[in-house]
């Protein structure tokens, strides 16, 4: 990779962090978050996939100005994926202001088994507002790279294969920046603490 674009990225991120620190004087500091705080805020991932209604979904455009949750998972996953989604649905029930201004986006990493109907039915068990996305394996891999998570890997054979995938929920504040991520093990009380703080981070 040519070092100059990388340098440019670093400068931009540093500048962003400095500006972020200035803003911190007037709005709640993100350092008080219960989530895993990123050293440098992450820009919102840019990718387009297809939603469960068959329409193209430009992630950064569709979620602009929203408190945005991005999770890569698969519906056959019994132990990690549903826990995150169930917790968010439960927490939204307690924070109506957060719910009104949030968009939860679930991207399948198992397009082979997760048809749009399967994804929709899985998400509806938690909330019919949750957005489900799929695409070709290449598009889904590109989306994971854009979001800065290692692409999912199919493990084991036969019909009962499993998939190793990023276990954390990525969250972007309404200003379009990701300040923290939420690994498996995040408690509902952590979400309840952090989401009102992140909702305050709007573009000035």
């Amino acid at each position, binding site marked *: 990779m040519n070092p100059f674009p990388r340098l440019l990225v670093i400068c931009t991120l540093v500048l962003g962090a400095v500006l972020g620190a200035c803003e911190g004087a007037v709005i709640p500091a993100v350092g008080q978050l219960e989530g895993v705080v990123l050293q440098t805020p992450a820009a919102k991932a840019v990718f387009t996939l297809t939603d469960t209604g068959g329409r193209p979904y430009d992630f950064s455009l569709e979620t602009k100005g929203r408190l945005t949750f991005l999770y890569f998972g698969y*519906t*056959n*996953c*019994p*132990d*990690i994926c*549903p*826990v995150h*989604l*169930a*917790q968010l*649905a*439960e927490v939204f029930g307690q924070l109506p202001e957060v719910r009104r201004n949030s968009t939860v986006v679930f991207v399948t990493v198992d397009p082979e088994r997760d048809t749009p109907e*399967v994804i929709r*039915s*899985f998400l509806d*068990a*938690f909330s019919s507002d949750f957005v489900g996305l799929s695409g070709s394996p290449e598009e889904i891999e590109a989306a994971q790279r854009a979001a800065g*998570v*290692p692409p*999912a*890997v199919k*493990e*084991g054979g036969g019909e*009962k294969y*499993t998939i*190793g*995938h*990023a*276990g954390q929920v990525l969250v972007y504040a309404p200003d379009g920046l990701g300040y923290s991520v939420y690994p*498996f*093990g995040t*408690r*509902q*009380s952590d979400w309840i603490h952090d989401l009102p703080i992140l909702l305050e981070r709007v573009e000035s």
Partner: protein
Amino acid sequence: MRRITIWAFVTSVAVACTASAGIQVSNAVIAEPAGANTALYFEIENTRNEPDRLIGARTEVATAEVHRSFSEGGQMHMEHVASVEVGGGEVVVFEPGGLHVMLFDVDRLQPDQVVVVLLEFEIAGDVEVEAAVKPYAAIVP
């Protein structure tokens, strides 16, 4: 009336805790399925002095396998485990993000429904467990 009360008490104790040949299984819950599969969680206590092993599970509502979720290389993975040792006098907890019994192609289950599962141990043999169906959000606070 009194007989009903006693019966209810006996039943509730049975749901909370199942003991067989030194193996006690408690807090058994099945997550209300959102997709084709779901998971069963519980705690196993081995009250004897020698180790025993969980080697499998059976239920009428699904195909059951002992699985383990684990974190490696920045990702969450899941694998089938052939057996889980429970040392003498030890407790092993099956919980979200760790050991669990994976239930494949599970029937439609309703919250608070009670499902009978047989846990197969090497020494204790089949231990019958009654697991209550709960929403994920009630299992992971």
